[in-house]
């Protein structure tokens, strides 16, 4: 078997302007392509880059910023050159029932709801979109992962995309296989013809088997027929329907060596998505860059601890690479995101670049790596969105369900829907300036309300502080400018969902001790978001 595998374009085509010069004919041909004429049919692409296992909030969060003036945080710093290409989203929350555990944080990321069944989910939002735009391309959608880790105990954590029947869609992890699917195989008309005739005969045989099968067996066998039909549909889509632009681009794709580790595999997958968009092989893709419970290690960064262990940084503080290792890994993931943005920008589209006509969502299903809080998810949106995204902004929403964001993305991709999952409306402030007034204004009422015998009730803004030697400290900021420290056990923070209230004004009831003349809250009884 050949060991040289997937391909990337020759260098000349990776250089934005250079590509235009090298391919003058493409622009001339574009009117003949005939992709419909409505604005929604601008061949918009959607890509979701999922990186599980959360972040260290302190390193992720931006502080003291306005919508247009902001300084990137430590983890977001790789996006410095892309500052004008992104919208950083704050206070987008997943379904609160997912709070605190692993089980639902991957499922809810793209479905917006926790469901009773672990096996059958709502159709994920990317698939709703794929149903809408997928017929125009050979491949309806790509589900990929560059992280090889899979959870055998809870398979539902391994998937982001769910089909209309609620079942998880298969995810490909081998770049070579993805390459073959996109750029070999069905692109050969002889192969397509042969496969089609085989499928016709198989369907005939299938029908005679089903006629004799029991009712229960029929239900299972039906999946087989569905799968046959999927292949037939793809065969149909692969008929080039006279798309010379695609053919010309296909010819420019060259082989490079196979991926040996996670870093190379991630690059390969990102390249493949970009190429699939460039050649309009598909318009919808998802990539799981890190499983939320991944046991992957990052030897190429000098980190030999497992990411999932690192993410539980409050409880696994004595790991060799510790908090800095966790930050380093997340930093690397943001670099990959930036790489992808640059890659899309380097590829010419019929109008502008592929980047201009893409929507890319990067993020994690949880915020705090150890507490698994699902409020204020780490999310960054990028791409031109065919003019539907106004980039270069930092938007601090009032707490909003992630269904609203998914609904907005669906709308931009041309799916008209009023409601999806946990949505309460369509997220504003993406295509236009949000101009949101800060939700919390210090009205002077942030102070200790009751104080008696070592017990107190306080109102103020809850903040988190994470330092390498002080991993579990929360602060209640008061109107006076001073902050009360909250130093309480892991169990308390977790059980009272204290971490999920960070960034909000809270009423907190507890006991304190005086240390160095300052009150330090050591036990918390109640923490309520106002």
């Amino acid at each position, binding site marked *: 078997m050949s060991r040289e595998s997937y391909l990337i374009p020759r260098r000349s085509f990776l250089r934005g302007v250079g590509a235009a010069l090298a391919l003058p004919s493409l622009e001339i041909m574009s009117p003949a392509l005939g992709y419909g004429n409505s604005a929604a049919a601008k061949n918009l692409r959607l890509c979701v880059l999922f990186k599980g296992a959360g972040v260290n909030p302190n390193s992720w969060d931006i502080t003291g910023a306005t919508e247009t003036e902001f300084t990137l945080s430590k983890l977001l710093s790789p996006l410095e050159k892309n500052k004008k290409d992104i919208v950083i989203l704050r206070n987008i929350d997943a379904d609160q029932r997912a709070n605190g555990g692993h089980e639902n944080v991957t499922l809810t990321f793209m479905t917006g709801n926790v469901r*009773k069944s672990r096996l059958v989910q709502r159709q994920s939002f990317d698939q709703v979109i794929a149903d809408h735009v997928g017929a125009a391309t050979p491949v309806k959608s790509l589900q990929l992962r560059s992280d090889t880790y899979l959870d*055998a105990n809870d398979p539902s954590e391994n998937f982001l995309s769910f089909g209309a029947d609620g*079942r*998880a*869609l*298969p995810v490909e992890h081998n770049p070579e296989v993805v390459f073959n699917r996109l750029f070999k195989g069905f692109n050969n008309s002889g192969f397509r013809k042969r496969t089609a005739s085989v499928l016709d005969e198989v369907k005939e*045989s299938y029908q005679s088997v089903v006629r004799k099968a029991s009712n229960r067996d029929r239900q299972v066998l039906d999946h087989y027929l*569905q799968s046959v039909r999927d292949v037939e549909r793809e065969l149909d889509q692969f008929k080039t329907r006279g798309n010379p632009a695609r053919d010309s681009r296909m010819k420019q794709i060259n082989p490079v060596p196979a991926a040996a580790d996670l870093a190379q595999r991630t690059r390969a997958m990102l390249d493949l998505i970009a190429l699939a968009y460039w050649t309009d092989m598909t318009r919808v893709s998802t990539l799981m860059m890190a499983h939320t419970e991944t046991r992957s290690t990052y030897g190429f960064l000098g980190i*030999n601890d497992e990411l999932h262990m690192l993410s539980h940084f409050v409880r696994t*503080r004595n790991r060799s690479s510790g908090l800095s290792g966790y930050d380093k890994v997340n930093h690397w993931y943001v670099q990959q995101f930036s790489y992808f943005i640059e890659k899309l920008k380097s590829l010419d589209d019929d109008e502008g670049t592929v980047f201009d006509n893409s929507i890319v969502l990067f993020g994690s299903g949880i915020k705090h790596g150890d507490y698994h809080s699902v409020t204020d998810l780490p999310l960054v949106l990028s791409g031109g969105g065919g003019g539907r995204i106004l980039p270069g902004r930092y938007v601090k929403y009032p707490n909003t369900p992630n269904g609203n964001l998914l609904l907005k993305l669906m709308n931009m991709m041309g799916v008209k829907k009023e409601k999806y999952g946990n949505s309460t409306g369509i997220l504003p402030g993406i295509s236009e300036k949000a101009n949101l007034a800060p939700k919390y204004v210090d009205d002077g009422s942030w102070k200790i309300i009751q104080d008696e015998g070592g017990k107190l009730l306080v109102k103020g803004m809850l903040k988190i502080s994470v330092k390498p030697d002080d991993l579990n400290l929360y602060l209640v900021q008061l109107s006076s400018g001073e902050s009360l420290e909250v130093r309480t056990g892991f169990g308390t923070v977790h059980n009272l969902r204290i971490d999920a209230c960070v960034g909000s004004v809270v009423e907190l009831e507890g006991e304190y001790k005086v240390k160095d003349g300052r009150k330090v809250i050591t036990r918390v009884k109640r923490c309520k978001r106002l």
Partner: protein
Amino acid sequence: MKSIACMILLLLPGLGPGLGAAEQSPVLEVLESRCLSCHDADTRKGGVDLEQLLSAPDPLDEKIVALWEKVDKAVGEGEMPPKQKKPLTTAQKEQIAGWFEETYVLKDGKEHIGESRLRRLSRYELINTLEELLRVSLKQPYVYSPEFPAFLPSTLETILPSDAQGESGFYNDAAQLAGSRPPVLKYSEAFDYALRIFEQAPAAREKVFGFKGVSPELTEEQAEEILRRFLARAWRGYKNAESEEVVLSAYRVRRKKEEPVSSLLHAMKIGLLSPPFVYRIETARNKTLPYRVGAYELASRLSYFLWASMPDDELFALAADGRLLDGTVLAGQVDRMLKSPRRISLSEDFAGQWLGFRELWTNKIFYRNERWSRGIYDEVLFFFDELVKSDRSILEIVDSDWIYQSDYTGVRASGKRHTFDAKHGDIFASRRNNPPGIQEQFYKPPYLLKIKSDQRGGLITTVGILRVTSAPEKTNPIRRGVWLLDRIIGRPLHAPENVPALSKSEKVDGKKLTDLADILKAHTSKAICVSCHKHIDPLGLGLENFDPFGKWRASYRNKRPVRSSGVFPNGDTFKTPRQMKQILVEEYREPIVKNIAGRMFAYALGRKLEPYDRPALRKICDTLERDGFKINTLITDIIRSRQFQCRQDQP
């Protein structure tokens, strides 16, 4: 809700005496008076809400059944109510156990086996089946050669996607396979590949076609005979004249344009892509209670359990005239099948998944170098096979006075090479055939060692297992402990989500926490930790003498001595791994045996075990105990069970 009302009516006979519509059943009274103060919907202590059980019982609601199983177990094993509360009376306990039995174990007062499910072949089974059917070799050859690094997947493994383990813990789980889309396009690609290999193997062609080199003069009758014979094997006895005709006509159509051989191959491909090859279709008779399956169906059930592959010619012959249904013939076949090298699937597929050592291949984290990695993998594989080969006690998984040793630098066990009187032959003989033109280098299978020292013994001290239960660079006693609890003792635990970490500054018994054992000691003094860690830690600590690469060590790198000592919840203490293993074998024998038997039963049935499987499992465990825990007794008893030999068409 109409369906629920029906359900209640259906179940009424099973509810036991004294339960009318208005009347509260005694078992619910026990629940209400003794359990709900902690386990109501509001308090949900330990995350357990028993209020849901007060409504109508529903043997089809998996969540409710699982919850009842939990109650039954906690009460049966005396874990609940907690020690500080008044214990349940014997009558109350019997009420719960009896109710459970009546409602969830039995059906109309009778034992049953649940609804039989259609099973699709797992990837592993599919590749094995293609090898047997086409009489070709499709796996990576088991030789040491730069051309065939052991950890490179075979071509078919790169074409076919891997399966996900179902709730049974295995890839062959019917529900899991039914829930995921069959990869038809990949099947097509895989069959193309396999048929190409077949085409290039004259010996295989001759066997399958029955002709020495098919000539262009092949008549239509001859071709149909070839195809009919092929389909009989490929579909494993499934008969359907219409489907067969589709395949034959595929040949005729193709023959108009092409040579006989390529036309035959095309028709064979249609046969392979037809559902009866990919699925194990059995004839349903729409009965609500168990009935015996046909001879061909039994042949398939046998071969997929013991070989993870299709029946061979002898099984087919015995199925054809029904002799296989005879108990003596069946027993003879089981014996023959366990003697065949194809039993390796029990080690590779069953034990590999159950004990998790397949990860040595699939997870790059554990890779060190070709020789070492394959060496330690083979040690575990041969260890498990030795159990079957020499019909040994399953308890030797925990402790034994022999091990298998590969030739690699690094770990060495003391002792002499040894040969037992092996009943059965060499497991890998067939796969060690050198492919033509490939020079074999270095590879020697591991050899049996009789050990004298106290260090090793039992599958749990094989280097492979110690490696997969470690972090990349250090040991993780908790992971090892959880592994032993889950995989060996059968008590799965989930990582706590809301339990605090021990802070470094914390003191236990006035002493600062300096080394690992101290930290773990804190686990037994802090109430929140104790409930789980009293079970986990002793097990993990007992293996601390083995470093992350499975090497014996007496001290850590910082010169601190390793302490492989600890206390079990019942007060038993140990100072060495061997002592810990002895306690395991003596004190935990019952759950260990039940766990191993249950895992293998689930693998054989391709589904997770349900409450209605309990009587059968009990019977299997009882026989096992009488027979010295011999593994082949376990295998035979599973095959004798109604679950294995019968079908049932309604749940």
